[in-house]
Structures are given as structure tokens and as C-alpha cells.
């Protein structure tokens, strides 16, 4: 018996309007554990090689982990995945809130959406009762407004996920929204919902989860909540949440500013965590079972309007406060709200808007294409561009494809301003002088994303200090010497195995990464809940296997996949940082090759960044090696 899991997989074929429940395969669950592991393997097995992300053959997987919904800190996480319309590669995203636990209490560990509906539809899961409903009347509605409407219609105890107009219009960085402010934001998973015409998911789950040792799990759960209260970050980090790191990132010259032209924002104290507490906050808002709510829910009042909004989190602050130079936390929060309602990822959204503002400033986008004058630091400009993107109007039609494709279409030298890796926009840590963190971005399996690995603190301090400790220590703001690029590969690999492991288990990593909550808690709880004895080291080996698997998926899907896919954007290796502690620093392509050579060697990949047969066999993926070789030898039509 599989303790800890719900035990079933829900399959929805939108083309045939067919609903099927299948038992969760025990061997599959034991090997891939859950969440990201399930998503990665399902995508590799079920998406035919070479599938267009917008083809009915593309699938969307939502997978909880074995610890999702259980009595332990941060068990509210669930994972989503698809072949990404933003990158054409493996794409996934993670969501907090309450939807994952609800799905498990309803009886399902995983939801697999296949096919494509011919008209707007919705999936409503009420424990064992599952139905597809017509959603034509809801098409076009904004995300948060629709969530309120559905709660009123279905009941407060339904958990809701929605998409907004951006996903309906196939903006490639459209998100899924839930719980009035939680998003699965990256890689365009919302876009695939829009393409499949799935407007919302509603889940009410009232059932029980089996536990191997209920008494032990209750006691260990109690102890873990008690232990986390003793961490200094419990009272020190929590009040400002992720926004608390704003000052540190800025003071060490890593804060993306003015479309990555520089890495230091003079006005950072107007847009930091303290500003949130002083100017926005109504309540701290937590995900399911979370003792350290990083969500800050408040009201933003600006000259152009006011809104209730969760956030902004650090990433949104960096991309709109820094990258678009919005001057106040109220402006950033208001933009955050509009992105949430339209269903846009705030990270890619801020990167794309920053790119557009600089293109306009340099004459690469005309006044006619833009529809009005726009400039950095101007709220109205940012709102205007976001509306253009969501509607795919004027230049918004190109921008809706993300900076890589937009630059290809705009031309005029705009490629140099497009900051991305593999088509996914860069996030909130500029790293022309942080080579370890640079390597994290270059090799992240979904494109330029920080959540797979984060070693900025180690780049700066040389230690593994948790984030709360880094914030406490602060940054001096002093000029920094050029960093050494050698010896960073293992830092990155360790982080790439550690952080995504939480996405496998169905828990939030912030308890550990921000506060230093010990991994031994998860080892013990996993054993008590599932009855499976698995050390943390063994779990990390599973995380390593998944890393090779997601890389293999992307290598399979991109026929000319090679070393060039891991190169940094032109700006970061050609344009030195303009101001701040890292003024004048840049990373050269020679240094990039040192980073990649060391990384590929340590990973067991060839010089083109392709996992070797030996490596795949070593981690238990011999079948993946065979498939990869066949596709690379004979193409998709073998």
C-alpha cells in the first residue's frame, strides 16, 4: 500500500470529454516520489517527440507530492508541467495556496490533462464527482474577479485555479492564479490552459490521507512546528517575507535595474520589504500549513487607481521596481495586481516591459507601434504595455511572445537588449559579477530561473548561510572586486538537487532555504507518513535523476540542442554594469566556457551539454538514453 499518497490519478481528455480515474502505480511512485518527479517522467513518456506546445498531443500535468496536505510546515505545494510554449522545452512551475492539498483530499495525487477542448470549459472536482462544465460565459474574465465569482457560485470550500485574458490570447508567459494571489507563473503553463480552452479548475476535497504511523506523524508534525519557531528567521525573516532580501541584493550589486543596464537601484528603500509593511500591508497571508507566511496582502493606492493585492514579492519588486524603475511600492503593487488579473507572470512581465521600454527609448520600437510615449519609471507606461501584451495589440503582439521571439521580430539590434536563457526571461538576480549564480541561470532546466539553484549568497560571502542570515549581515554597498569563475560547478549542482527536492515532496523550500530548518525533519516525516525508509541522501539522488531527465526531455525536443543553448544573453557578456558595487564588471565568453566546461564534466554530460548514456544509465534512466539516441540519430519521425 502507498501510504501518504491519495492513490489515484485523474485523466481528463478534453478532446473526447472523457474522464478516467486510474490507480497510482506503486513502482512509479516509489521511483519518482511525486510532484516534479511525476511531472518530468509523465512529460517524457506522454508527449510525443517534436510535439508543438499548442498541439492537442501536448499535455498538462498537475502533481502533488507524498507530503502535500500532511501535518508539517509548508505542505501546501503542488507542481505543474507541460512542454513550454515559452521555450519549446521542458516547462514546469510550482504553486502554493491550498489547491494541491485539496486535490489530494479529493482522492487524486495527479491530474493529467490531454487533448484540446473545442469550446471554453472548466474542470470541477467535488471529491469523487468529476465533471467538465461549459465555461463560455466566463471566457474573457479577469483571474481574481472570476475566482471570487466562482467561490460565490460553488462555495467557499472549493479551491479555484483560473486563467486570465493573457492565457486566452496565448501570451507565452501567462500564468495560473489561485487563492487571490498565488500563481504558477513561469514557462507559460497558463498559456497551455488557454490553448486547451480550460478556463478554470475547481476542487473540493473532504477525504482522508492514509498515514503509515499516525501517532508518530502527529508527534513529529507537532515537533517540527515547534522547532521552526525557534529559528531566528521565524520572527526575523517572516514579517517582510521574500521582499526582505531587497536591500541585500541591491547592496551587493545584483538588483536588475533599467532592463539590466545596471544592478543597483538608488531608490531601493522605496520599494523594499519595509515599504510594504508601512504602505500596503493588511494581513500576512500564508499557504496551507505554512508557519512563515511570506504572502503580504495589502491595498495599493496610486494616482491611477487602487487595488487589493497579494504582494509584491521580491521577484516582482525586482522586475518592476528595479527593471522598469517604478518609483514606489504602491506602483509596483498596483502593477502586480494588474498582472494577476490579466494572468501574466510578473517576472517575465517585468522583463518584457523593461525590454520594451528600452527598445522605445532607443528608437527600436516606434511611437506608432507603441501607441503612446512610454518611459522607465512611469506607472502609466507600464500599465499601457501590459494591456497591449494581454490583448496582443500593436507591439504587444510581438512582446506577448517573450523577449527572445520579440527581439527576433523587432530586429533593429534589439537582440542585445533581450535578457533571457533559452527563451525564458531572466529573474531578479543580476550576476555579471556572480559567476556561481550566473551558472545557475545558464543551466536551469526551464531557462533563466532562480528557483532551481541559488548561490548568490555563496558568490558574495563564500558561505552556505541561510537567507535570513544574509539579510542580517547585509551588504556594504562598497565596490566589489572581480569574482573568481573557477570552482563553482559543484555549488550549483548541489543547489540544483537540493531546492527542487522540495518540489518533489510537495513542500515549500523556504522553511529550509530562508530559515535553515533542517532536512532531517523531512527525512523523518517522509518515513512516518509513507512507511518508506529513504535517507535525505537517497532523496537527493532521486533529485539528481530528475535533473538528468528534464535535460534529456529538452535535448530530445530541440534537435540542434547544444552548448549554445546555455549561453548568457548578449547584454550580460557585452555591456558592463553601469553603476553600483559591480560597476564595470561583465562576464566574458571565455569565462562562460570555463563555467560550462566544469559543470558538464561534473554532471557527466558531453561537451555539448547532452547527458551521456553512461550518466543516464548510472542514475537509472537507461530507457531515456535509448530514446534520446534514437531521436538525435533519426529525428522526430523515426
Amino acid at each position, binding site marked *: 500500500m502507498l501510504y501518504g499518497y491519495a492513490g489515484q490519478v485523474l485523466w481528463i481528455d478534453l478532446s473526447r470529454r472523457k474522464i478516467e480515474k486510474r490507480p497510482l502505480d506503486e513502482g512509479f511512485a516509489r521511483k519518482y516520489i511525486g510532484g516534479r518527479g511525476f511531472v518530468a517522467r509523465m512529460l517524457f513518456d506522454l508527449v510525443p517527440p517534436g510535439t508543438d506546445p499548442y498541439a492537442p498531443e501536448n499535455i498538462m500535468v498537475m502533481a502533488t507530492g507524498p507530503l502535500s496536505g500532511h501535518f508539517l510546515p509548508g505542505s*501546501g505545494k503542488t507542481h505543474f508541467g507541460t512542454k513550454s510554449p515559452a521555450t519549446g522545452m521542458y516547462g514546469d512551475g510550482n504553486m502554493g495556496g491550498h489547491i494541491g492539498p485539496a486535490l489530494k483530499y479529493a482522492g487524486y495525487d495527479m491530474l493529467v490533462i490531454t487533448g484540446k477542448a473545442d469550446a471554453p470549459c472548466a474542470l470541477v472536482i467535488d471529491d469523487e464527482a468529476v465533471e467538465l462544465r461549459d465555461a463560455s460565459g466566463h471566457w474573457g474574465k479577469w483571474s481574481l474577479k472570476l475566482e471570487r465569482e466562482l467561490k460565490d457560485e460553488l462555495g467557499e*470550500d472549493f479551491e479555484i485555479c483560473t486563467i486570465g485574458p493573457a492565457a486566452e490570447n496565448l501570451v507565452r508567459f501567462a500564468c495560473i492564479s489561485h487563492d487571490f494571489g498565488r500563481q504558477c507563473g513561469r514557462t507559460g503553463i497558463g498559456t497551455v490552459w488557454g490553448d486547451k480552452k480550460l478556463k478554470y479548475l475547481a476542487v473540493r*476535497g*473532504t477525504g482522508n490521507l492514509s498515514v503509515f504511523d499516525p501517532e508518530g506523524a502527529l508527534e513529529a*508534525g507537532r515537533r517540527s512546528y515547534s522547532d521552526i519557531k525557534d529559528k531566528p528567521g521565524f520572527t526575523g525573516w517572516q514579517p517582510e517575507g521574500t521582499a526582505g532580501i531587497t536591500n541585500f541584493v541591491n547592496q551587493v550589486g545584483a538588483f536588475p535595474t533599467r532592463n539590466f543596464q545596471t544592478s543597483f537601484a538608488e531608490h531601493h528603500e522605496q520599494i523594499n520589504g519595509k515599504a510594504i509593511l508601512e504602505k500596503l500591508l493588511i494581513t500576512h497571508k500564508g*499557504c496551507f*500549513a*505554512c508557519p512563515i*507566511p511570506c504572502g503580504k496582502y*495589502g491595498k495599493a493606492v496610486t494616482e491611477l487607481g487602487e487595488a487589493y493585492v497579494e504582494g509584491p514579492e521580491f521577484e516582482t519588486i525586482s522586475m518592476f521596481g528595479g527593471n522598469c524603475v517604478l518609483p514606489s511600492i504602491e506602483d509596483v503593487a498596483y502593477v502586480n495586481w494588474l498582472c494577476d488579473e490579466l494572468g501574466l507572470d510578473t517576472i517575465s512581465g517585468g522583463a518584457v516591459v523593461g525590454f520594451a521600454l528600452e527598445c522605445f527609448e532607443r528608437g527600436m520600437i516606434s511611437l506608432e507601434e507603441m501607441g503612446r510615449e512610454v518611459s522607465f519609471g512611469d506607472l502609466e507606461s507600464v500599465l499601457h504595455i501590459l494591456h497591449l501584451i494581454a490583448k496582443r495589440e500593436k507591439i504587444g503582439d510581438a512582446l506577448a511572445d517573450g523577449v527572445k521571439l520579440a527581439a527576433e521580430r523587432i530586429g533593429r539590434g534589439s537582440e542585445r537588449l533581450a535578457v533571457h536563457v533559452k527563451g525564458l526571461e531572466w529573474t531578479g538576480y543580476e550576476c555579471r559579477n556572480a559567476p556561481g549564480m550566473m551558472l545557475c541561470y545558464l543551466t536551469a532546466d526551464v531557462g533563466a530561473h532562480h528557483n532551481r539553484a541559488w548561490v548568490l549568497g555563496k558568490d558574495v560571502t563564500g558561505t552556505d548561510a541561510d537567507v535570513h542570515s544574509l539579510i542580517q549581515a547585509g551588504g556594504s554597498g562598497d565596490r566589489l572586486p572581480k569574482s573568481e569563475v573557477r570552482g563553482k560547478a559543484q555549488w550549483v549542482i548541489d543547489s540544483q538537487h537540493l531546492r527542487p527536492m522540495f518540489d518533489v515532496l510537495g513542500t515549500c523550500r523556504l522553511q529550509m532555504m530562508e530559515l535553515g530548518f533542517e532536512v532531517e525533519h523531512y527525512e523523518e516525516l517522509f518515513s512516518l507518513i509513507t512507511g518508506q525508509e529513504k535517507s535525505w541522501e537517497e532523496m537527493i539522488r532521486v533529485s539528481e535523476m530528475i535533473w538528468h531527465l528534464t535535460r534529456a526531455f529538452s535535448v530530445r525536443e530541440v534537435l540542434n540542442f547544444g552548448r549554445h543553448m546555455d549561453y548568457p544573453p548578449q547584454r550580460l557578456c557585452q555591456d558592463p554594469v553601469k553603476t553600483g558595487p559591480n560597476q564595470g564588471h561583465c562576464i566574458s565568453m571565455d569565462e562562460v566556457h570555463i563555467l560550462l566546461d566544469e559543470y558538464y564534466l561534473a554532471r557527466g554530460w558531453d561537451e555539448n551539454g547532452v547527458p551521456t548514456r553512461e550518466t543516464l544509465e548510472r542514475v537509472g534512466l537507461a530507457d531515456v538514453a535509448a530514446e534520446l539516441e534514437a531521436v538525435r540519430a533519426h529525428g522526430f519521425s523515426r
Partner: protein
Amino acid sequence: MQLKAIHDNCSGCRTCLLACAMENFRQVRPSLAVLRIEGLFPAPGSYRIELCDQCGACAEVCPVEAIQLEDGVYRVREEECIQCWECLEACPNGVMRFHPAMEAPFKCTHCGACVQACPRSAIVWSDEKESLEV
């Protein structure tokens, strides 16, 4: 001692619901919890905790007196319950509960699992008789 809700401290994590179901039923099943958290979103953007304050409304309406006050806590005597469910209707806070798998309604027994589990001290014990909410 009474359970007291400090709504402003609540972040909506529902750890209390998990703890309640684990403690009283040994089930990972928040739907069994005898307290509720209501999110008021998007506006005004706050949470409301609904607790049993042992007001006795359930006992008052019970036609067979199956709910009795014992040491300051109203308890359901399952063997005497006739399943008329009038107590559910009478509960002003909506925390008298029913579940198809159970033969009688169930309610808060002041076990304190919610108080112990709440990471933000949004549910606390209080001596105050008058003000049970903040």
C-alpha cells in the same frame, strides 16, 4: 478557560484544522475540523476564525438532551443522539459538524490542538469571559 480568536493574527494557513482532525480523529482530513477559517478576499483582505465558544446553543435545542455540559465543555453523548441535526442549525458559528461517516454530530472538546498548532498565536486560551474575540 475559553478559546479566543485573534483574527488579525490569522494568515489562513489552516494548520489548526489539520491539527484538530489529527488530534481528534487521527485523520489527515481538515474537513473534519470543528473550527473554520474564512478568507475575506479580495476585499477587505482578512481572515475570520470561527470557533466553538461553548455557548450551549447546541445543547439548548437538543430534544433528547444528548449534549451535556461537563467541566465547562459541552459534549455530545453519541449513544443518546437521535440524529435530528437540529444542533447543526442552531450553532451560531457554524462549527457543530456532521460527517456521513459518523453516527452523531461532533463538536469542539477544548482539546487545545489548534492552540498548540497555530504558528501565529491566532487562537489562544483566555480567562476573559466577556470578550472572546479581538
